[in-house]
């Protein structure tokens, strides 16, 4: 099953149950009492997921490691490399 099919499958199952619940083909006092929240359930879930996604992405953006040390180390190694390569006879442009 492709990833797309998985999503379609889950969505179909969800919306079948949801449709049955709001159209009243399944009868129960509980469903009547909770009709409005159930009606808005898909929208609520989408909004909640959107909030989750935005906070996760923002959190990860702010906590994305800044590799200052790696950059400093690399600069040091570049100098070392250039000096060593020159001593081995490689013609290099000025630093």
């Amino acid at each position, binding site marked *: 099953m*492709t990833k*797309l099919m998985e999503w379609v499958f889950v969505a179909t199952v969800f919306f079948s149950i949801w449709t049955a619940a709001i159209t009243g083909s399944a009868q129960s006092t509980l469903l009547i009492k909770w009709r409005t929240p159930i009606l808005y359930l898909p929208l609520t879930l989408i909004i909640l997921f959107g909030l989750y996604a935005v906070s996760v992405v923002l959190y990860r953006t702010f906590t994305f490691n800044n590799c200052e040390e*790696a950059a400093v180390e690399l600069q040091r190694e570049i100098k070392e490399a250039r000096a060593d390569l020159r001593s081995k006879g490689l013609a290099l442009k000025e630093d």
Partner: protein
Amino acid sequence: MSGEGSTNEELKKLTKNDKYSILLPTYNERDNLPIIIWLIVKYMEKSQCAYEVIVIDDGSPDGTLEVAKELQKIYGEDKILLRPREKKLGLGTAYIHGIKHASGNFIVIMDADLSHHPKFIPKMIELQRYLDLDIVSGTRYIGDGGVYGWDFRRKLISRGANFITQLLLRPGASDLTGSFRLYKKDVLEKLIKSCVSKGYVFQMEMIIRARQFNYQIGEVPISFVDRVYGESKLGGSEIFQFVKSMLYLFATT
């Protein structure tokens, strides 16, 4: 992974029958190539693993190939192999071209622009040996991994794209677009054959196909330092390409 000395001895023993072919595709990297090769030699000699570096230059107008020839004189023709091509034919085919000439049973793929530091290669080798993995992928997104020289906007786009791909594709690896990886040679050959996309997005497809084939993937956090010399050759159509192939993989795998 404490006690460098003993680890190196152990790693040497573990890899005594192995050879690592490091593929370096280059296009206008004359300033970077000497440094990256110097760094590879430094860290590979330290690890005492058998290795070779294969430079695949696509007729760079800046004379990268001439520099490569100089380096070959310094380090020897058994260590530095030159497998140039006439003109710029793209990264995907550069790897295929390189593998054909690789004598190792493991292949390391990395960029030559100094954003991938060779010090991580021994770490990848070690992880591969301990867990007998098919692929070890460098990752910017977990543990000590990270980036240098990226502004907020670029980090946000990167994290956003990563979140969406993880959600849609569930690839089992955290860095899909990174191209710093170690592969078993036969695994890489099989993956390349099964990939349809070309260019930059094919890194992503490789991991997805690997998941399809049930290959074992491990990850090593890497620090990605944005290129020091020269410019990135990947232009603005990058994002469009990315979305297109993500949706393609979403619908077909």
